[in-house]
């Protein structure tokens, strides 16, 4: 709606301008202005006029005295883009354009880190993308050096320096061998943004159970379940115990609690008992005979 209004206003201004351009009022405009900076528009001639400044999502109007400079204070023009300036006097109309470019100094980073949770030991498993903005949320398209830093709980730090292209920079990092919460930080100048990446254990490795008599049945208990890098597999992970006996079978899905899975089963004489978690198989036990 706002942009429609701007274009309608621009059209009206240009229509009004046509019959008056020959009347001699002049103005001089800067070629570019940094977003948020002060600048002035110098006019020539005499009498009063109205100055319109029409830009992206911004329209300013000033009553000016021809022959004097009209000053736009710092912060009054801040959206990057092309601006149309129309000077309408009593007897003349003048127009011109200038560009507002993003401020050089970064003020904000949009940092997209993916994923927020991944298994340990994945090459290039973590990606970070940064978009650099100035204080007025203009994307800074001029090249800049972004520093990415991934620090793991074991104090290992991966660091990359990446130059922005068209306001964006990205990188990929490896997840480390140790589970825990990593801090993933992107920094440009004194602006930084931090994300958290959780490194979780991988599939169980060397899954092993033992069996012992318990009442009329048997008690099956796994050793503490760890992944191949030695991280404790989290509680809640399902371990499946299967007891196969003379044409029959019993099975139970048990969640790890306090690092182990424990269950009671009937323990038929001569049964073969196996353990698995997901697609990982553990050891087998022949019970009885």
């Amino acid at each position: 709606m706002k942009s429609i209004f701007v274009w309608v206003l621009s059209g009206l201004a240009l229509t009004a301008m046509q019959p008056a351009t020959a009347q001699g009022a002049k103005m001089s405009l800067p070629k570019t202005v940094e977003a948020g900076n002060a600048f002035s528009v110098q006019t020539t001639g005499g009498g009063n006029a109205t100055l319109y400044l029409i830009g992206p999502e911004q329209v300013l109007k000033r009553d000016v005295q021809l022959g004097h400079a009209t000053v736009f204070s710092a912060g009054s023009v801040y959206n990057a883009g092309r601006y149309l300036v129309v000077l309408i006097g009593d007897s003349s109309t003048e127009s011109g354009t200038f560009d507002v470019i993003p401020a050089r100094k970064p003020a904000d980073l949009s940092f997209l880190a993916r994923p927020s949770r991944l298994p340990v030991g994945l090459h290039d498993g973590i990606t970070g993308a940064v978009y650099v903005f100035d204080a007025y949320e203009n994307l800074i398209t001029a090249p800049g050096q972004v520093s990415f830093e991934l620090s793991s709980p074991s104090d290992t730090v991966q660091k990359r320096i990446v130059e922005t292209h068209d306001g964006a920079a990205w990188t990929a990092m490896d997840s480390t061998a140790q589970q825990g919460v990593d801090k993933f930080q992107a920094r440009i100048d004194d602006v930084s943004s931090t994300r958290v990446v959780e490194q979780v254990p991988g599939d169980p490795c060397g899954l092993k159970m033992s069996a012992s008599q318990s009442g009329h049945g048997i008690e099956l208990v796994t050793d503490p379940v760890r992944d191949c890098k030695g991280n404790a597999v989290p509680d809640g992970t399902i371990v499946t115990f299967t007891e196969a006996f003379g044409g029959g079978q019993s099975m139970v899905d048990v969640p790890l609690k306090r690092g182990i899975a424990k269950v009671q089963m009937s323990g038929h004489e001569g049964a073969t008992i196996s353990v698995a978690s997901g697609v990982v198989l553990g050891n087998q036990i022949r019970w009885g005979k």
Partner: protein
Amino acid sequence: MSKGLLIASLLAGATVALVVVGTVWPGPSAVAYAGGGPLLGSSSTPEEAVAKLGDEIRTQAWDKAYASFANKAEFTEPDFVHDLTGYYPSLLTYTTLDKFEVRPLHASANDAELELKLYWATVVGSSVSIRDLHVVRDGDRWEPEWPIVKEPAVPPQVIAVDYLRWDVIYRGAGDDWGAQDVEAPHVRIVDMHPVGRADGVVILGELLNEDVVPAYVSVSATLMSKSQSPIATEGSFDKISHLLLPKQVTPFLIKFPGVSLSDVGSIRMTPLSALIAASADPVIEIGNEQLHPDPGASLTGQLINQSGQIVNVAHVLATFYDKSGQVIWVADQYVNQALLPQIPVPFEIHIPEDLARNVGTQRTVVATYSAGGLQ
């Protein structure tokens, strides 16, 4: 008077007359349905006595049904009602009897054995239960003896549980657009196999939650023709265990009725996963599973609730593999009674006869629902 108006008047008059006749002299079935009496009032034969009982169960005339039993001294009316509808909330609690069948097994001059097959209409479909009734003669009447099955009592005890559950906090509405949200669980289809059946194409497979958090899962599939245009899209609906704990595997089955496998060029599978607040309990043991060959091929077993929490609804899903380990069928059954701690509850899953002889191994999982709490 026009012809149309005459016909309309005749129809209106006939309707009023029929309503009056039906109200003043209702038929026996109407009386029965209105709760005014049994549909079959006679008990002059064993079949009639059991059919009358079935009718009273269907209309939930518990007092009349109870009064008709020859062995009512052995149990109370609430015992009888609970025997049919469950002692604890279960699928049968909110069900009605759709229909019943009576089949004579044996008869003599003074007693008879009959089978009463009850078809319950539950929220997840039809559930069938069978009771064998002994019927005895009392003068010119026959009275059934109800084979009461009293709910096994769980001894009073305290069961310690290492309670484990997950909760989820999502990003807030005011967070920066680049801010992270919690990652959806990573799931993977570890097996998928399309099968051509007489009634259409069926896609069988298994889905693994390879993450460290619980996942709400579902699978949909799109059949593509040989020219890569979509034929149909279907989901697994309830032929899957929707809650998967970390490293848990569920089978799934997706039906495409009326589609021929020869028309299918490729299949696009879409596994869906979302974070869900969940509990690691209860633990259900699937015990004494037996594969029964033809005829009437089935997998039977019993569910044993190893936790202290009552499970109100249990859904058993079985994956059947051939000798080479290929998935050849997925079948399921809802258990219509609650699972009490340590009390075995039987289940029976039927296997299509043409596939039964190829079954080498099977794997079973149980999805559970407990009223008033997380799974």
